[in-house]
């Protein structure tokens, strides 16, 4: 089910501001790729270009190609909703639908896909919640509001919601930045498990986290404020963290960055 992602010269703009410049990288199926780099270097922008969420913002546009298993998702005849159904996304701040119960949150995507049968929804909801390591904590209160959970639980609920539709790719933008260390570890374990089925791309500011969960790491950076972000180095995580080939990467991961 997992898919290969190939970016060819992806350049993203907010209005006339170029946020990332010509990013090219290939992300293998069933792997975890971490995107690291200083704040404002365009990690989120690149991530949101992978599922076409970038263009949701006013005046945002994109150049270049992004292939998912060889299909350019920016081709004119591609249905953007189909792309997003195939690519799940977990946001920095947990964002369960506040008006929905835990159960309704998990099956929101399925309902959008037209699944109506209660038994099917229940079965998939349980499976997704189990995969997200949340089932035991919420199984007795599925009808309660999703927003009533703790931050870490909400984030796992959002992960459950993203994987309930069985996407091919899961994008995560600093999924642990609002969480305590224990919830963070729970989510890292989860990422390692999910890797067996999905292609995962995760943005993180936490070097240890990148080192722990990812197979490959991409380092983004900017020259100075106002310049576009660029992909500086992209390699096996072990190599990036022990023996990076670019000086800038080394400076960043050893904490000598600006």
């Amino acid at each position: 089910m997992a898919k290969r992602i190939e970016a060819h010269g992806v350049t993203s703009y907010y209005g006339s501001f170029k946020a990332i410049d010509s990013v090219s990288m290939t992300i293998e199926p069933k792997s975890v790729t971490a995107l690291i780099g200083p704040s404002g270097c365009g990690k989120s922008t690149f991530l949101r270009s992978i599922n076409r969420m970038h263009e949701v913002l006013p005046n945002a546009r994109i150049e270049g190609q992004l292939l998912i298993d060889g299909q350019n998702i920016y081709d004119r005849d591609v249905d953007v909703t189909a792309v997003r159904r195939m690519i799940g996304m977990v946001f920095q701040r947990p964002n369960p639908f506040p008006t929905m119960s835990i159960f309704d949150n998990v099956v929101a995507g399925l309902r959008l896909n037209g699944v109506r049968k209660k038994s099917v929804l229940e079965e998939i909801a349980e499976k997704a919640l189990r995969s997200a390591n949340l089932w035991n904590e919420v199984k007795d209160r599925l009808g309660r509001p999703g927003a009533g959970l703790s931050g870490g639980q909400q984030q796992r609920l959002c992960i459950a919601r993203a994987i309930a539709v069985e996407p091919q790719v899961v994008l995560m933008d600093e999924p642990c930045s609002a969480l305590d260390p224990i919830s963070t570890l729970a989510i890292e374990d989860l990422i390692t498990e999910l890797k067996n089925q999905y292609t995962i791309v995760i943005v993180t500011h936490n070097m240890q986290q990148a080192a722990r969960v990812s197979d490959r790491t991409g380092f983004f950076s900017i020259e100075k404020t106002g310049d576009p972000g660029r992909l500086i180095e992209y390699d096996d995580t072990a190599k990036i963290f022990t023996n990076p080939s670019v000086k800038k990467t080394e400076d960043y991961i050893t904490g000598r960055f600006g």
Partner: protein
Amino acid sequence: MLFRGTATFAGSMVLIIIAAIAVFLVVKAIPAFQDDTENFFTFKEWFTDGDTPRFGIAATAFGTVLTAALALLIAVPVALGIALCLSHYAHRRVATTLSFIIDLLAAVPSVVFGLWGRDYFYEPVTNLSKWLHDTVGWLPIFGSEGPYGKSVLLGSIVLAIMILPIVTSLSREVFLQTPRENQEAALALGSTKWEMIRTAVIPYGKAGIIASVMLGLGRALGETIALALTLGSVFAINWDFLGPGGITIASNIANRFGEADEFGRSALIASGLVLFAITLVVNMAARAIVYRRREFVGSA
């Protein structure tokens, strides 16, 4: 501390004022209740002169609820549609301009709309009535043979136009409040814009939408002049929307208060008390709906 004191003071003032209004209405209405020779709640007509006053609020209360309900039925879908277009579909600049105009319209006193609407819509509604009667005349509500013109339909349409801006303006505001994270969550699941609105925007705004509809309803229930001008002033309970008919508590008060003697005024105030009660019940019902889902709603 200061804020809390002020808030408590303001809150209790509101309650005291409402209570004072209620007491005023009750005191003034008592003579009318005592001397009415018919059942005040079931009698339809309104004769307050002479030795045997016979009057009741059945027809006026029915007319009030009917015209207000019809007006809501017409106005709310349109208002919500416009509000959504402005908040989520229209181009920024267009939306800003239109929203500004609608906010202005919402501040226009309803009587201005009422007069304008009456003059402007009298002809079209007459034609619409004929057409409705010709096409779906087998429905009792469109069964009237005419003459068309002043009718429940005309009154409700004018009412609908009056409450349209306020409902639009407030619900647009509500739709704009939807947190971007929720909207992005829906979009990232692969929803179309409309599906996103149904999953994230409308449920989130439900309490606010109900509140804005209630404000519109409040205006509709209390509207006097416009309905005095557009309804047929017929004291009867029937479901005929097209024929010369319709009367509401407020328009009845407006029609008669000037010429009424002391007793007549007392009777009209008694009817005002009923209007007050209707408004209160409607508001409480709306609040109950909002409250029941409170824990699920992000705001308010």
